[in-house]
């Protein structure tokens, strides 16, 4: 029986996410989970029925301690990622996140039609983030900024260090701690919704493209078809030149 052989695409390994980017990603994931969990507790603590005296336990104290410690890690990790946007490889570059070129908008529109509206057409193959993802990450950076501003703003009066003190203007600007706290709480939901969609889309891309999307945040590699490489199309939004 004659077997009809298919043309099987040869894949080429591309180092997309450098070690610092991967490290940033997983540390960020970890501290955000910690911040959300402790944040929920701080906002609405569980009803502990305890026979202990108050002096015998420090539950809220420890939960807040974890929240603040995680917040510092989150903040410095965020600063590091911003720095890496200037010195990292082209897939980590800040230009991947800002819709500042016509090409970026065109690609966003294309991703919208192919991946969200599910229209028929030539599949889009981006190597790093696609433009839509890049733009959503830009929004997450804004959310990071909001959380850092409001969070450190609320933390400042408890601290003697100059760094949190830099944020005292935030509650003053927003008109008090009550509203600052509420904005901090509302913005947290953006992270939850983002995480759910983000994890789903990683599975989605891995499933329909078969290029190692899920594992890319582990080893840093994605795989592109040899033809794509030959065409030398760095299909990245806002390329260097």
């Amino acid at each position, binding site marked *: 029986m004659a077997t009809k052989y298919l043309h099987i695409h040869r894949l080429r390994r591309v180092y997309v996410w450098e070690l610092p980017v991967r490290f940033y990603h997983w540390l960020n994931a970890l501290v955000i989970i910690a911040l959300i969990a402790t944040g929920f507790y701080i906002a609405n603590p569980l009803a*502990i029925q305890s026979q202990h005296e108050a002096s015998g336990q420090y539950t*809220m104290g420890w939960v807040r301690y974890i929240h603040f410690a995680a917040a510092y890690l989150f903040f410095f990790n965020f600063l590091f990622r911003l720095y890496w946007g200037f010195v990292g490889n082209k897939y980590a570059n800040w230009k991947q996140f800002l819709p500042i070129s016509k090409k970026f908008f065109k690609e966003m529109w294309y991703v919208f039609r192919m991946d*969200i509206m599910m229209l028929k057409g030539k599949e889009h193959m981006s190597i790093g983030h696609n433009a839509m993802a890049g733009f959503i990450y830009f929004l997450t950076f804004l959310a990071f900024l909001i959380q850092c501003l409001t969070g450190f703003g609320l933390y400042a009066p408890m601290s003697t260090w100059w760094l949190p003190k830099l944020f005292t203007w935030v509650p003053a600007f927003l*008109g008090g701690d009550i509203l600052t706290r509420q904005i901090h709480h509302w913005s947290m939901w953006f992270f939850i919704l983002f995480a759910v969609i983000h994890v789903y889309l990683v599975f*989605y891309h891995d499933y329909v493209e078969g290029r190692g999307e899920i594992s890319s945040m582990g080893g840093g590699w994605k795989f592109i078809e040899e033809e794509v490489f030959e065409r030398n199309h760095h299909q990245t939004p806002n390329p260097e030149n």
Partner: protein
Amino acid sequence: MTNDASQNTQPTYYQEVERKGYSRRDFIGFVTMMTAFMGLEKSAIGQVAKALETKPRIPVIWLHFQECTCCSESFIRSSHPIVADILLDKISLDYSETLMAASGFQAEEAMKNTMTKYKGEYILCVEGSVPTGADGVYCMIGGKTSMQILEEAAAGAKAVIAWGSCASNGCVQSAKPNPTKATPIHKLLKGNVPLIKVPGCPPIGEVMAGVIVHLVTFGKIPELDRVGRPKAFYSKRVHDSCYRRPFYDAGLFVETFDDENAKKGYCLYKVGCKGPSTYNACGVMKWNNGTSYPIQSGHGCIGCSEENYWDNGRLYERASAFAGFGIEANADTLGKTALAVTGVAIAAHAVATNVRKKKLIFELEKQGKQSEQELKS
């Protein structure tokens, strides 16, 4: 030596105290208390005493606009009688709608006199917000709108004190939809007159006295924070000085006002205490001669000295109301709804992917399966 001859005719605070029949001991007691309240060192007691002995009393005009007079009430109930007798009674004799003996033209005349005679020297105290809606007709005194009165009085003032939440941030009458367009005075004052905000509904009497004594003693306004409140009284949150704080740190909370935990005096955080968001000195100075303060009486802080406390969420809940999504909705119910919608959308997207991108997925599978078959086992 002073150029203004009229100042010399003004008695000093100490002279007034003596005339009222207080002893030297009472006076020193008062000075010590005030110095402590202002957060000054012990060595400053002499400075404060000397200032009150030598400086002529500063004329004060005390205006009342949209308010309930609780600030005045709080002030005259301040723990040391000298506060009411001297700082208020004598100081504000010039003009205070609540406490002056004069009325009508006589009163207006007294204010006018003070304003011209002590131009650039008097302290203007404002209690209440200014309604700017409908050209200010909602609050008129002697045929003038409160805006006009404020402008005239502030023009020649040495400093302006915004007493209470009304004058500092508008208080309840500026709650949405704010029909009278009640406006705090810092948004209305023009020029460079220094402004001190003393928010609270009402502010603590001793805090009010402390601000005045500071002005008198040092001849300048006390150190203010970013919002314009004296740092000595508003730099700490009620939460930070709360005697129930250990229960908060331990995670022991009152769940309802009638439960066992309430009897034990646990933290009122979960029944809506706004202590963690409120900057005031209640936990330290307390009220009514240091007798108690809301949390000590078993009721959470409502955040009365915070801007917009009336619109920012509910008094008996931590969770904040989310405007525009029904009266019961808070951020978390909204978040959970969004999460459910997202889940449904993802499920729909996953199904659509398998339908619309069938060919693509099938192709990948075929390629993969072929490689598997071609490999030696």
